[in-house]
């Protein structure tokens, strides 16, 4: 959606004065709340709020055939639905490009950090493995879906139970996990870079950057989006801020 030029001027002017429309510092995140295990029919679930943005992640598991190149590993699939409930700008219908990019970026963070131990989800090598479906349902859209969805997916995995009993495979047990990735997203407009963009900041954004940081502060996935560009220095600085911020978010995520 195009933002009115009045609003754009307003955000630009604020940026020059070192301010954001909601009064945050450039490297300041909005309040986060995480609620795990909210959906009874799902194997795992979580509702995450970042400011006014709200996302629900649900995990379902099924038994299926492994991919030919990984016969001894489970599989995972991540999808995102931008349902019209969440914003007047979302339309019903098959997922558009932005929903697909969103799901793929979330998927990459989880996959590359080996958060879900797919090698422990083999039932019969080459024949039967667990398939983990991560579904992201956006409920209220006020910016930064990348981080909200990534956090909701990780929080949902943390309370996922493998439904062995329902499939006649013995006792139910927790989904085998390692350390979750933490995603931090930045946008750039009028020469400034801000973390955790709100919707109005996304609407004036020239460039977007997302990085997934692991427990050691190492990088597991990145995505640059939109028409604008970043300098090398800017990217390096974003990573530094993400490393610092991700520690706080990780603590929140792992709290019971």
């Amino acid at each position, binding site marked *: 959606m195009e933002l009115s030029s009045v609003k754009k001027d307003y955000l630009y002017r604020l940026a020059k004065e070192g301010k954001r429309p909601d009064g945050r510092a450039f490297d300041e995140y909005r309040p986060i709340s995480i609620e795990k295990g909210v*959906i009874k029919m799902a194997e795992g679930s979580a509702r995450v709020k970042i400011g*006014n943005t709200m996302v*629900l992640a649900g995990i379902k598991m099924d038994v299926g055939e492994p991919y030919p190149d990984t016969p001894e590993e489970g599989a995972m699939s991540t999808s995102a639905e931008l349902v*019209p409930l969440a*914003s007047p700008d979302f339309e019903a219908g098959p997922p558009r490009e932005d929903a697909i990019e969103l799901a793929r970026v979330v998927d990459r963070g989880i996959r590359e950090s080996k958060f879900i131990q797919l090698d422990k989800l083999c039932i019969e090598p080459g024949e039967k493995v667990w398939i983990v*479906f991560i579904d992201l*349902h956006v*409920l*209220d*859209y006020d910016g930064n879906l990348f981080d909200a969805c990534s956090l909701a997916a990780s929080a949902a995995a943390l309370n996922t139970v493998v439904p062995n009993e329902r499939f006649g495979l013995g006792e139910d047990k927790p989904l085998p996990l390692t350390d979750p990735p933490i995603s931090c997203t930045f946008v750039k407009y009028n020469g400034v870079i801000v973390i955790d963009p709100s919707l109005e900041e996304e609407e004036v954004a020239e460039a977007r950057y997302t990085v997934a940081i692991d427990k050691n502060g190492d990088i597991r996935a990145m995505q640059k989006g939109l028409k604008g560009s970043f300098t090398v220095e800017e990217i390096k600085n974003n990573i530094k801020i993400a490393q610092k911020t991700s520690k706080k978010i990780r603590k929140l995520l792992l709290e019971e």
Partner: protein
Amino acid sequence: MELIKDGKRIDGRLPNEMRKIKIEAGPLYRADGSCYLEWGGNKVLVAVYGPKEAIPRHIQNPTKALVNARYNMASFSVEDRKRPGPDRRSLEISKITSEAFENVILTELFPRTIIDINIEVLDAEAGTRCAGITAAAVALADAGIPMRDIPVACAAGKVDGVVVLDLTSEEDKKGDADLPVAIAPRSEEILLLQMDGHMTTEEFDQALDMAIKGCKEISKLQKEALLKKYKTFEEE
């Protein structure tokens, strides 16, 4: 399996007893009106947008607003993962829900516009269409859309030969009949009615009467939820 034992149902309820219902008006930030509703194991979220210009233009009606309800189930809301997107069942529910609301909304006040009602089922345990309609009515009121009445829905049915109110999944699957009903509670006009199974005329009369009584109970909860939100506004 017996569905009724010593006059009680598998979850311990009496035949004319409803599951627990919790309604919250206006939980969403972006929507013009919204409602979150829990009904037994069902969790439903509804957002209303509009009235807004109907696009593309050729769908506009020069004399009244269009009412467009969309019922959608989250992939993780059911036992076996549902593929995202509409199927025949949800399209049918969307259609009859839209028609039920068209009856009560004063559509002639908003020519050339559309009112979108987005119903998302997040967790499902039988009776999701009734939960969706009940929540949508609260969301429409929260959006300030003028209506003749605030619709409300509830199902009755028959299990083990006994007429009961508000079926659970087990009763829906193994029972004899299901009868979801939506009404305009002040006039008791029927806005939506479906039935599947097998009932005698007497059983139907009894079930319809039970469903309408159930609707009237839930209608009180809808009004309480709306009052709760707007009362705090008044005090502030």
